[in-house]
């Protein structure tokens, strides 16, 4: 399993390097702008909190890339055909790919959450966003990343185009939001009053889509004979 994980890491190395760049870039930009005195009226603490959330949102792209590249990436360069005649079960192949994708979770989330939490706790007294609001934002970012990954994974398991798989993953949350808006509009539902209710709908739908996509993708790949 060690060699399989190494191979999958190596296949996705460019995505991990991009993730690291995207992890550092927003904070570096904020640091540079503060150092050059271009921060404007925003305090450095607020700027870094914002850059953490911004980086988190941006880094969810990595999950779409990892999901979309997982199987289709090896189909398109036909290296999947090499793996297909080696004595390794489909279950082990999937597990290795999943473990590599899971390794991106702490890489993406931990640094940003730590920066956010430290600054949130240490910032001077003043108006602070409520914890529910922060959790809601972080939750929707997490669910969006999960949907990116799972839908891209589904298409990656079925097709040989990583680009199409990544795009399918990226577009799904937007389709869900659009779908919710259309339902509300067409059914002439009353104003839900709180955006939290819409977010609950969004989160719920995305979770169902993610679970269904991940399971169907995995089952399809496990049952398939061809690489």
């Amino acid at each position: 399993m060690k060699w399989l994980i190494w191979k999958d890491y190596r296949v996705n190395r460019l995505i991990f390097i991009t993730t690291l760049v995207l992890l550092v870039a927003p904070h570096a930009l904020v640091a540079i702008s503060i150092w050059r005195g271009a921060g404007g009226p925003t305090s450095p603490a607020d700027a870094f909190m914002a850059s953490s959330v911004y980086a988190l949102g941006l880094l969810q792209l990595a999950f779409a890339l990892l999901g979309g590249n997982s199987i289709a990436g090896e189909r398109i360069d036909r290296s999947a055909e090499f793996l297909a005649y080696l004595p390794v079960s489909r279950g082990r192949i999937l597990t290795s790919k999943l473990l590599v994708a899971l390794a991106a979770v702490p890489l993406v989330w931990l640094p940003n959450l730590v920066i956010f939490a430290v600054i949130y706790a240490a910032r001077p007294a003043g108006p602070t966003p409520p914890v529910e609001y922060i959790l809601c934002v972080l939750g929707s970012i997490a669910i969006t990343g999960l949907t990116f990954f799972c839908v891209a994974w589904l298409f990656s398991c079925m097709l040989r185009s990583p680009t199409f798989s990544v795009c399918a993953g990226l577009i799904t949350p937007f389709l869900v939001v659009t779908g919710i808006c259309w339902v509300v509009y067409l059914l002439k539902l009353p104003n839900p009053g709180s955006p939290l209710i819409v977010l609950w709908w969004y989160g719920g739908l995305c979770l169902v889509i993610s679970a269904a996509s991940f399971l169907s993708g995995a089952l399809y790949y496990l049952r398939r004979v061809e690489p």
Partner: protein
Amino acid sequence: MTNSSSDGPAIELSGLTKVFGSTPAVDNLSLKIDRGSTFGLLGPNGAGKSTTIKMLMGMLSITAGEARVLGVDVAQNATIVKDSVGYVPETHHIYRWMRVGDVIGFCRALYTTWNDQTCHEMVDLFRLDLSKKVKHLSKGTLVKLALLLAVSHDPQVLVLDEPISGLDPVAREEFLDGVLRTICQRGQTVLISSHTLDDVQRLADTVGILYDGRLLMHGRLDEILSTTKRIRATLVDGRRPTSLPAGTIHDRVQGREWLVTVSGFQAEKLEHVRALEGVAHVEVADIGLEDLFKDIVKAQRATT
């Protein structure tokens, strides 16, 4: 059955069928390859050789029938089959970014019976540079690496799917030396599919000819070649006689010469040709595998 049995044929295909859309690529193919034999699978392009081999290797789903390798059902236990079979494909898709040493390490970790000594011997034999990246290897070296990976886990069955197509004569010779060495040292069962019939004739003791997914001929190569002859007759007026001897595979007229390829050759067949009207002179010649193959394929094309 989950474990490979120690008796019975090395490879057994029963009614193996593969249909793409509505086109059968392999049609009800039944075949047994004995342990320790070297089987040459011949056929023109599109005959279904690679499709058969891919089904055998568990890389392609089987529409109908059954494929067993060392007694193990490929459809049920593909991983067990892959562990006991060495495979050299026609085209190589080994991870291009890996170094030769990485590829060996990667495969070593996946096979349960990897033999470091065999691997080192093959590295020395083929003079492989372990630090070189796969993408920088020549086609000949890539094929040698593929053979090294195929034999280093001491497989009981070696499957070679047109492994030497596109190789220069020196690389081809070195590759075949490696295969011969494996056959001689370990007595493995070898299934080789190739268009280079001279090489098949050199390696194989049994052959099968596939055409349109169907097995046209199957048997021991020496028996086939000893009982199949080419009758060369001179025609008086250059007109092809209407009566053909029994067992005629293919016949053609070139000027005043009539060439008849006959299976199951016996003296009576020669007498039959001699007795035909318009035949002046008759002689019998041995036929090589390549000519026999060409005649069988031409005869099939003429009937379809």
